[in-house]
């Protein structure tokens, strides 16, 4: 037995002896100074209630974290075919306001007819695109559409739009005929409906739209191009801005074959030839 063990052994014996020698006097129950009766039955329900509250708080934290991550992280969207969500929480009668006007960039946007699939979407943001230029003009909050006679049209950039993409909120481009465009939610984005939205690799964020359902959009989708990818070359020319891409895309004629190169968020490079 080394010194430490000897000391430890003495400590155990000493403490045991001190503990055993302790005089325990009789004290009243409940202890002195209590002025409230003890509720013996309050313990269990309170503890249960506390557990329930703790569970709810934990759940709220998890849901909040997921919502925050989803809300703040641009991500590549899964693409599926088909109409938008079937859940309907509002009816056409809720949408009484005229949904047409002028976007911040001065362009006129169209109308969302009440009763259609767009109007019935559970909660979405309308991404307004001028039918002629296919450029986004702004977006409207669904709640604004329901409760304001003149909904606010916000200017938009890609970050804003992606930032609003989360389950329960969808995006719908308003083009020539919104009725033909299914409302989409992030987990069920139909790139053909969105057209093609591409973030440029420069600070300026811009958009290019392919006609929803058009051969170009379909080809790009089939080629694997997704939202958030960066197009680096288009039709033989390097692309350094969204405007440049818009211009190049606008020049394309139906049936034209074009080679396109892009990188995804992980930095992987891809090249494909697509049919417009």
């Amino acid at each position: 037995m080394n010194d430490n063990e000897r000391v430890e052994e003495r400590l155990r014996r000493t403490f045991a002896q001190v503990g055993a020698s302790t005089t325990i006097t009789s004290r009243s129950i409940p202890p002195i100074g209590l002025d409230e009766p003890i509720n013996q039955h309050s313990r269990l329900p309170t503890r249960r209630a506390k557990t329930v509250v703790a569970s709810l708080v934990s759940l709220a934290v998890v849901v909040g974290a997921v919502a925050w991550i989803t809300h703040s992280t641009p991500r590549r969207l899964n693409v599926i075919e088909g109409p938008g969500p079937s859940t309907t929480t509002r009816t056409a009668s809720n949408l009484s306001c005229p949904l047409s006007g002028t976007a911040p960039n001065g362009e006129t946007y169209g109308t969302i007819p009440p009763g259609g699939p767009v109007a019935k979407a559970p909660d979405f943001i309308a991404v307004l695109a001028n039918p002629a230029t296919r450029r986004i003009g702004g977006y409207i909050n669904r709640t604004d559409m329901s409760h304001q006679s003149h909904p606010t049209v916000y200017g938009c950039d890609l970050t804003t739009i992606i930032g609003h993409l989360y389950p329960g909120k969808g995006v719908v481009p308003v083009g020539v005929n919104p009725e033909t465009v299914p409302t989409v939610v992030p987990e069920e984005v139909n790139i053909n409906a969105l057209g093609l939205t591409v973030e440029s690799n420069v600070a300026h964020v811009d958009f290019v739209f392919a006609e929803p359902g058009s051969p170009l959009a379909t080809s790009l989708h089939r080629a694997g191009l997704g939202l958030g990818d960066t197009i680096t070359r288009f039709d033989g020319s390097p692309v350094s801005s969204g405007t440049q891409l818009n211009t190049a895309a606008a020049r394309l004629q139906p049936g034209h074959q074009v080679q396109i190169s892009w990188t995804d968020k992980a930095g992987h490079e891809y090249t494909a030839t697509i049919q417009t």
Partner: protein
Amino acid sequence: MKSPQSEMEPFGAVVGHGGVSQDPSGELLAEHLGGLSFETVFSEYRAPMVRLAHVITGSNEAAEDVVQEAFMRLHRRWADVENPPGFLRTVVTNLCRTQVKRSRSERRHTQRTAESIGEPELDETWDRVCRLPFRQRAVLALRYYADLPEAEIARILKCRIGTVKSAHHRALATLRQDLA
């Protein structure tokens, strides 16, 4: 080596209902006490808590007061406390801290030796222990009397495990030197 404590009234153990099992974390105990009344906890745990307080403060009288205060606090928070023994242990230890500091400020510990416990070797050990700083005394008492793990001691003393280890190490070093 079997702890002498295990032959006595268990500290921090599940008592009653025909069994005794060590439960330093108090989890089993909390479950066990789920439907028990304050009076039951008082009667079952007052004596072990007084003994613990005695071991930490070195004063039987102060230990009684400390434990009485601890039970009053437990009573006030009865509906919120999920692990009464753990709560008591923490409150008792921290009240002992106040008690020890008060004793120090009154210089009582320098004017009188520790209470005699009957055996010269143990008296000497006890006297040395009573001269240690509070944290070292508390760590020794919680470890060698209450048989608590370092993590639980750290929780009770509201410090890091490393602090517990260093206090333990320093206390043993001091005692090793004093008792050589």
